[in-house]
């Protein structure tokens, strides 16, 4: 028969576990909220994927299919294509008259921050990050 001190240990262990879960969830919520506040124009799923790859894999090449959305009116898309080409040496395709789509490498969180600062016309950035480096140069 276990003594009462064992029960206390198990009980405190359970409560510690619950507390750890609560702390983790609370911290995660705060983190997600902070990410949304700091990068309001970036698709949060893309942002989290880039962050994860950057942090987990030191040698990640930053291979990202990027879609940069501009307002439909009052934006010269040719100028924006030039902006992307000068920045990433990739010629983007235009989707739905307002989205520039291209696949680039070395696209890290800092790069997203820079292009958002350089081009306030950007309305939204979405896309997908991939670990596969061989995919980086395809279109």
């Amino acid at each position: 028969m276990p003594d009462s001190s064992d029960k206390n240990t198990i009980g405190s262990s359970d409560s510690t576990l619950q507390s750890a879960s609560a702390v983790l969830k609370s911290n995660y919520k705060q983190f997600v909220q902070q990410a949304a506040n700091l990068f309001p124009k970036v698709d949060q799923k893309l942002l989290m994927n880039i962050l994860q790859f950057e942090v987990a894999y030191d040698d990640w090449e930053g291979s990202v299919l990027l879609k940069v959305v501009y307002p439909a009116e009052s934006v010269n898309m040719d100028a924006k294509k030039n902006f992307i080409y000068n920045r990433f040496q990739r010629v983007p395709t235009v989707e739905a008259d307002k989205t520039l789509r291209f696949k680039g490498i070395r696209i890290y969180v800092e790069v997203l921050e820079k292009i958002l600062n350089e081009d306030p016309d950007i309305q939204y950035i979405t896309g997908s990050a991939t670990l596969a480096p061989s995919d980086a140069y395809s279109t």
Partner: protein
Amino acid sequence: MDPNEKTIDDWQVLVNKPVFASDGKEVGIVMSIQPDNVIVSYGPVTPDKYLIPKSSIKDFTDGILYLNDTSEIIDKNYKFE
């Protein structure tokens, strides 16, 4: 409805809810919430995606999001993919 009075937590309720234009046509399903916009997608394989400003939202009742704009305006101005 004044969207600016809502918090992010309130807006998260809209995710996965259907969206309808003012002419009654379905625009899609809310995918995610941005600070100024709502991302809506429509279609199973290669879905059309819309970046709809929160200011275009007319009402949210019975789990359905209603917009001020017609489907034609939405398609022309807000479709980005």
